């Protein structure tokens, strides 16, 4: 089956007086592994459930494979959803669970059996068919849920926080298996998560959502390197963010902020007009004897150091603000003592100006 795309056009949805989705527009390409990433309450699960048909939008349209599905009930949509709690029916065996959707489609018995076996095989659970869900581990239950959904060969696969009920180690392994499975089947997949690592490691593209609005859509690297606003910068990865104004004094460009005070910006940096925050990643900061003209130069005193193995995370008091710097650790090197005054440099290429 050829993969299909999902088009969300100007969708709005309210529960009573609460606006949960506000003019959402996003296109998921055929065969794409697409993530909806956001904190709880951002509307990501609502959007997913809307695609599945469990929520009704009040404005806009939802197209699956070019066909408007507005008003189509969930049972006629042919989008497979894997639920956060797996939603395996305890009164049925694994086999009966997986066969359910095929039976609803009135497939002949022999074909049902064949497809159930194939689906269980796909997720590595051949031979588990006669068990009941309660007799399986959390990871196995999740794989049954995936097999049950894939068995009907849906046009689109929806995953609602599929990893959140697994323990940390299993989560990484399952994440990788999901990616392999998706690449192999090439099925258009939409993945809801609040965990940025999950989204960045698995998906082709990610939509970052907050407050019922899509903040930014892009590849994981685009989101990390070029966040468009303060929310995306903070939600994807960790970041140093300082609100302030740009001042031009003669030829020199300065950044005046309440926290950092006035700092000179390196040559060649062209800030956009208007109110923007200065942003840079902790790993872009280095400790130097003296910063060159091509880098942002900051001076401060170490307040706190956390040893995280691969690197040390320093909190450095600069003016009124705290700058976080992740400094790679080399074997045997002693941490910088709290209270030590140091110079920091951030290369001009790592500076971002993001909208508030």
């Amino acid at each position, binding site marked *: 089956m050829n993969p299909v795309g999902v088009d969300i056009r100007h969708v709005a949805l309210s529960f009573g007086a609460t606006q949960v989705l506000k003019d959402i527009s996003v296109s998921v390409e055929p065969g794409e592994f697409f993530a909806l990433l956001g904190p709880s309450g951002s509307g990501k699960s609502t959007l997913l459930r809307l695609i599945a048909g469990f929520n009704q939008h009040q404005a806009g349209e939802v197209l699956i494979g070019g066909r408007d599905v507005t008003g189509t009930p*969930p*049972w006629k949509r042919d989008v497979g959803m894997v639920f956060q709690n797996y939603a395996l*029916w*305890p009164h049925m065996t694994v086999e009966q669970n997986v066969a359910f959707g095929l039976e609803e489609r009135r497939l002949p018995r022999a074909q049902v059996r064949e497809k159930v076996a194939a689906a269980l095989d796909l997720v590595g659970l051949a031979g588990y068919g006669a068990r009941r869900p309660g007799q399986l581990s959390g990871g196995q239950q999740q794989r049954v849920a995936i097999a049950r959904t894939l068995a009907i060969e849906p046009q689109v696969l929806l995953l609602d926080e599929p990893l959140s009920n697994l323990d940390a180690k299993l989560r990484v392994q399952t994440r990788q298996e999901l990616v392999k499975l998706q690449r192999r089947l090439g099925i258009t997949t939409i993945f809801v998560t609040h965990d940025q690592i999950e989204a960045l490691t698995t998906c082709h593209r990610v939509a970052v959502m907050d407050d019922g609005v899509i903040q930014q859509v892009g590849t994981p690297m685009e989101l990390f390197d070029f966040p468009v606003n303060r929310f995306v910068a903070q939600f994807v990865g960790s970041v140093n963010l300082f609100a302030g104004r740009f001042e031009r004094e003669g030829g020199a460009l300065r950044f005046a902020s309440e926290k950092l005070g006035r700092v000179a910006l390196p040559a060649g940096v062209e800030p956009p007009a208007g109110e923007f925050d200065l942003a840079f990643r902790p790993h872009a900061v280095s400790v130097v004897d003296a910063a060159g003209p091509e880098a942002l130069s900051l001076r401060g005193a170490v307040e706190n150091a956390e040893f995280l193995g691969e690197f040390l995370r320093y909190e450095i008091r600069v003016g009124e603000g705290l700058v976080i710097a992740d400094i790679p650790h080399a074997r045997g090197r002693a941490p910088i003592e709290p209270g030590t005054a140091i110079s920091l440099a951030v290369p001009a290429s790592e500076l971002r100006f993001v909208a508030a």
Partner: protein
Amino acid sequence: MRTHPGIVAIALAIAAFLVAFLVIPVVAVVYTAFSDGQGGFTLAHFAAFNEISLMRESFANSLYVAGMTVGLGTLIAVPLAYLTVRFQFRGAILVQTLGVLPLVMPAFVGAAAMQLLFGRSGSVNLILKDAFGVTLPLMEGLNGVIFVETLHYFPFILLNLSAALANIDSSMEEAAQNLGASGWRLFRKVVFPLAMPGYVAGASLVFIKVFDDLGTPLVLNVTNMLAPQAYLRVTSIGLEDPIGYVICVILVAFSIGAMGGSWWFVKRRDYALVSRGGVQAPKRRLTPWQALLAYGWIVGMLLLVLSPHLGILLLSISKVWSFTVLPEQLTLAHYATVFTESKQMIWNTFLYCGLAALLDVALGTAIAYIVLRTKLPGRQLLDHLVTIALAMPGLVLGIGYLRTFKGVELPFGGGALTASWVIFVLAYAVRRLPYALRSCMAALTQVHPALEEAAENLGAGRWNTIRRVVIPLMMGGILAGFVTSFITAAAEISETILLTSRESMAPMSYGIYLYFQSVLGRGPGAALGVIAVALVAFGTYVSHRLVAARSPHQSGGGQ
């Protein structure tokens, strides 16, 4: 820590009480059914039972009536439960009313009113005959028993099923919809099977209650069923007739079977997964046609369920009511009659049920404390013993008492135990003990042990801790247990009919039954019935209030 000798003594006393007034009477009944009279084992009585065609017929009839009641009750309860739990809909309060109304009136009290409303020359059939020239045999023979019992007992299915439906995580249904199921198939393949434990619990309870019921068939003059036969054999042929005991063994076997079966059914399947996540399904909207159908169904049911209540009320204030749609002359004379003739019975009800309920909460509190708060070896046995009472039909316990305590004299010249009012208190208390115990246990579970430890830490001994901390904190549950015991005892009829040896000693429920035996007594019987219903309704209300009030101030020290 060693268990306090006082506690050991109390536990032993409770065990002795349960053995004397629960275990021995039941064992006596079973023993008699299998005994050849010389101490040997025999199945001859069962063979004799099987020889009598009336017995075979009664057995089949009892099964048929209980089965039909479960079936019809299911038909009424399932749509109501599904509607309220899954759809947006204003009738929820109506359905809740439907669920409680029948329970406040003993089935046998309603039976007389139903006869007048739905009987051969009852209101409904008079109207039907006038309009269409047909009558419906709603109250003929077994139909009447089924009709009355269905309207009385379907709430057990409704309440259990509603609770089970409400507990199903919404994703369970959504997953099925997502895979292509909808409407009836969704209900049949996913929703109903998931609610099955609740349904089975309710349905098995209804089956037992109907199978064991004595009062309703007797009031409707249906005797070809098991419970009435046992009663008739014991009262007409005598306590020595083994057939009555054979019937008792059958009743007990079915009770235990149904209870055990439902327990096994729920246990067998792992339903723990069902409520994970704990999100209740969003309620769906009804289309106008569906809404019309839903409201029609509910209003129709409400009218049916209300009919015995209205009937009994009308009957109690009507001078004459026969062969007319509604009574033609109203009077309050029946109430006057009741208050002069039956004052003693009303007083007896308060006395017996009050003492029985008091005994229940005392035993319940003690057992709850021993089971939950001490390490006394074998303490669970007390709990299990009490559970036996749940499966014992009133009829069986009544016959057991008559057999076991025949010739036992009360101390201090009180006369024969079986002829004294004390036997009512004992019989009522034993059969209501499971309810009181649940209530007390629930209350004690909510009291955090740290509250007791704090008292002990401040120097209170064990008894003072119980008296000043544990019991005050349990009070809500104890009171609710008292009220439940009291009202269910007041509405009891099986044991009552059996144990009443003199009219002066009888409680109200017997009085109602007695009045209903004659046409002239129907008015006063109904008046007494209205008083009983008012009493039970008031008690139910009080117990609901107590349960509701108990939750907030119990939070102290909880985790």
